[in-house]
Structures are given as structure tokens and as C-alpha cells.
């Protein structure tokens, strides 16, 4: 399965991936309208250091601790993709406790979480963060 992988040496720390993520999942078709004046809550996050930056999003683990720990069955794995069903989530944050990469976060409502689903549930079709990365610091491929 194709996953998102990080080339941290190439990351400029520009945060464009975060904006593309927020736009792709906004349900809107105009980036300016979707993001203007909005405090974004993206599913990919850039960690910034003195010498190095990198973006982190769901690793789609083969043995996903989030799925095994989810108390509701809102998180599931099928054909390698870890999906999230907001309808079942009660916002207990057991998945936040379980994810070793810190890639599941509150969704802003305070009653549910959110995570990267590789843009399979929005109009983008393939990860918007990767398409928007200007320096190939994140790639979408088989490894």
C-alpha cells in the first residue's frame, strides 16, 4: 500500500502541507475562502527544530495501537488504511493516549478526534499535503 513517507532533509518548514491538508478537508473548493482568517487544525503537523524540520501524519501502522485501543470501534483498518468513523467517536481520547507518533488529535469540536485518512474521503483523491509540498519532503509511495 502507498503511504506517506518523510524526507526530513528536504523539509523547509514552510507548513504548506498543513494548509493543503486543512483545505482538502474543509469541504470547500476555494483555498482562500476555506482558510482566510481560519485557525487551521490540520491532520499533518510540522515539527520545527534548529536545524531540521519534518511533517508528521498517521503512519497507517500494520499493527495499529489506535485501532486496538479504540473503545468504540470508530477506528478500523482495512487494506492497510486506518479509517475513522466520526459518527461512532465519543472523544474519549484513548487513541491519543495510544498513538506512538502523536498523529491523532482533537478535531476542534472537543467531542471527537481526527486523523489523516490519506485524502480518501475528500475530493482530493490522493494526499493533498504531498501534492502541495514544494520540495518533495513528503512523498506518497510504496516502500
Amino acid at each position, binding site marked *: 500500500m502507498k*503511504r506517506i*513517507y*518523510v*524526507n*526530513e532533509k528536504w523539509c523547509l518548514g514552510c507548513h504548506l502541507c498543513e494548509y493543503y491538508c486543512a483545505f482538502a478537508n474543509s469541504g470547500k473548493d476555494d483555498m482562500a475562502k476555506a482558510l482566510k482568517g481560519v485557525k487551521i487544525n490540520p491532520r499533518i503537523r510540522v*515539527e*520545527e*527544530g534548529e536545524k*531540521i524540520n*519534518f511533517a*508528521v501524519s498517521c*503512519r497507517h*501502522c*500494520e499493527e495499529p*495501537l489506535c485501532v*486496538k*485501543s479504540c*473503545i*468504540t*470501534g470508530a477506528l478500523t483498518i482495512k487494506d492497510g488504511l486506518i479509517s475513522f468513523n466520526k*459518527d*461512532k467517536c*465519543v*472523544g*474519549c*481520547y*484513548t*487513541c*491519543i*493516549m*495510544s*498513538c*506512538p*507518533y*502523536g498523529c*491523532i*488529535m*482533537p478535531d476542534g469540536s*472537543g*467531542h471527537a478526534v481526527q486523523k489523516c485518512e490519506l485524502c480518501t474521503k475528500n475530493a482530493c483523491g490522493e494526499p493533498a499535503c504531498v501534492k502541495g509540498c514544494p520540495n518533495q519532503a513528503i512523498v506518497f509511495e510504496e*516502500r
Partner: protein
Amino acid sequence: MSKIVIIGNSAAAVGCIEGIRSVDKASEIVVISDEQHHVYSRPLISYLLLGSTDRQRMKYRPDSFYADNMTDVMLGKTVVAIDPKAKNVKLKTGEVISYDKLLVATGSSPFIPPMKGLDKAKKCFTFMKLDDALALEKELTPKSRVLVIGAGLIGLKCVEGIADRVGSISVVDMADRILPSVLDKDGAQLVQSFIEKRGVKFYLNDSTAEISENKAVLKSGAEVDFDILVVAVGVRPNISLLKDIGADCGRAIKVNEKCQTSIEDIYAAGDCTESYDISADTNRVLALLPNAYMQGETAGVNMGGGEKVYDNAIPMNAMGMFGYHMITAGSYDGDVYTETDGMNYKKLFYKDNRLVGYIIIGDVERAGIYTSLIRQRTPLNEIDFELIKSKPQLMAFSAQRRAKELAQRH
């Protein structure tokens, strides 16, 4: 092809079924449950009363789950005995079900200590199963005065679930703080103050001296009027089926890393077992849904002919009260790093070059990075501990480890 029987129908049973089917599509699986319900998530009963889930959404797996996994389910049936020589289980109805391999996932039951006058309280409930919640719900009115005995996870989630549906809530606990099994004193105080703002009244360091139909007199002399009593002082593992046949039991059923009991072809998982807590180097009952699932899954893979060990169990809890969240894990031992900032509170406990536990209240983002340090027993001198103390982040790892985690499939 063999026949696998599972006693119990909650998280450990589901883990077991999914574990079996990951390696074995052929074996017959039979689930026997004394409840009448399709598998549901026990911890969701408070959310059901709160209205943030419903009977359909609280199903832990879809309606097609048993069929999808070629599993027969016997609901409303109670197992009364196991015969390990003849390899069968006997039901209350007299039916006998044979097995080649057996999983005991019988969970735990509410513990009700002797309390003077308890029998006089007409509306008295425990809060563990769906039927408990449904029975309690029937009695709730906007005027109800509710007394909850026990300020642990179960008692307080019950409080949250019913808070907007009753007139008043009082909570009594013998401990000096709320959530004594997961919070330290300062953290508990923070959460208690927050809950008190919702009108909940706490009586700590206290217990009931005498209960009458609508009143409890506490040891301190305080009197609490109530219409509804909820007893949530703790749970006891359901071990009698295995204890009766001589299986190795402590407080709960003892299992090895493959989740085998001391009796051949019998496995056990979930709240009825003891786990080896690697954060405290000791055996403990870890009555937590994730632990139940992972034990069940481990048992299932091994029962189905695969190989799996579960050897990094730790206590861990994610809990919210009225939107105020806390995540805790591991044991609270060793050196302490503390950070507090109004409503946010963090304590990290570290010992012998390892993180062994944490308490985080408020801003819980990325707490799983800390959980992982505990479960993987990551040597702290291999990471930038100063950096990760203030905020959980992957930047604290070496570039080499990051390359492994972020640039490889796993």
C-alpha cells in the same frame, strides 16, 4: 479444524475472534455470553446516558461482525462449569458444549461491600453493563437526588452521564481524593474543582455509616438525602470458573505472555486476568479495554495456530469529565518532572533511565509519544529528554530512529 469456545462477549472476546481469524479461517468459533446484547462497548454506557452515543452506535463491532467472522453466538447463556478433562463447558440450562481450545473472558463484576442499611435503599444500582445503565436511566428524573458511592473512573463517568438529567449529585469516597487509582493529589484537586463547578458535591475521606431509604449518614456525621443510590466502589475479577478447577489464580487469573492459563488449552484475557505491568515490574489487574483487546487478540492468534506474545502491558487511562481531559499511564515512581499552568497539569515520572509514568490533565495532545516511551522502555539517554519533557515530540529522537519511524513502513 478445531473448535474454539469463548466465554464472554466483550473486548477480549472480539480481540480473540479477530486474532483467530487473522491466522485461521477454518476453525469453528462459539461465543457464549450471559448478556442478551450484540457486542457493545462497556465504557460507553455513560456516554449513552449523556446522549453522545446510542444503542446502535455503541456496538463495538458492526451487526455483521459474527457472520463476517463465521462465529456462532449463544446469548443469554451462563456457563456454570468447565470440565478440562472432557474438554467441555456446562451451561446453566444443562447444555454441554465441547471445545478444543477455550478462552475465558468473563470480565469482572461490581464489588458491593457490606454497608449498613444498604438493603433499605429501594433504588440502588451498579454501573458496569448496558442493563445497569438502562435500569438506572428509567429512574432518572430532573428532580432526582443521586448519591454515588465511589469517586473512581466508573463512579465519575456515571456522574458525567447523568449530570444534566437529575437534580443533584453527591459523591462519597473513602480515599482522600477523586480518581485515586489514576491521579495524584494535586491533579485530583484540579479535576475535582472543575467537576464541583457543575454542582457536584464531594465527601472525601468519608464513607457511609448507615443507609436508610432516602438518606445516608456518613462516618463524618454528614447526612446526604438521596432518591437514587449508585454503588461504584470497585470491581472483582470473575475467576470462579477457573479457580474451581484448580487454575493458578492470584487476585485474578494468571496467564503467561501468550495468554495461556495454567490449564492446557485454556486461555484467559481481559478484566478477569492479571497482567504483568512492565512499568512497575509487578502483576496487576489492568481492567482496561485496550488491554482486554490486546490480550484477547494474543490469545486468539495462539489458539488459531499462530505465534504472538503480549509483553508490554501497562496501566493507562484516557478520561474526560465535562470536556476536561486527562490521560495517565504507567506507575508513579521515581523522579518527577512537574509543569502546571492554570488548567494544564503534567507530571512525568522517570527512574533508572526510563520514563515509567505520567499524568497529563488539560492539554493532552500527543500524549501517546510518552506512552510509547514507557511501553518500549526507551532509554532516556538515547533521546533528548529535556526537549521531550516540555512537549511530546519526535524531534527528541535521533535522526536514525526518526528515519526508521517516518521513512519506513511499519
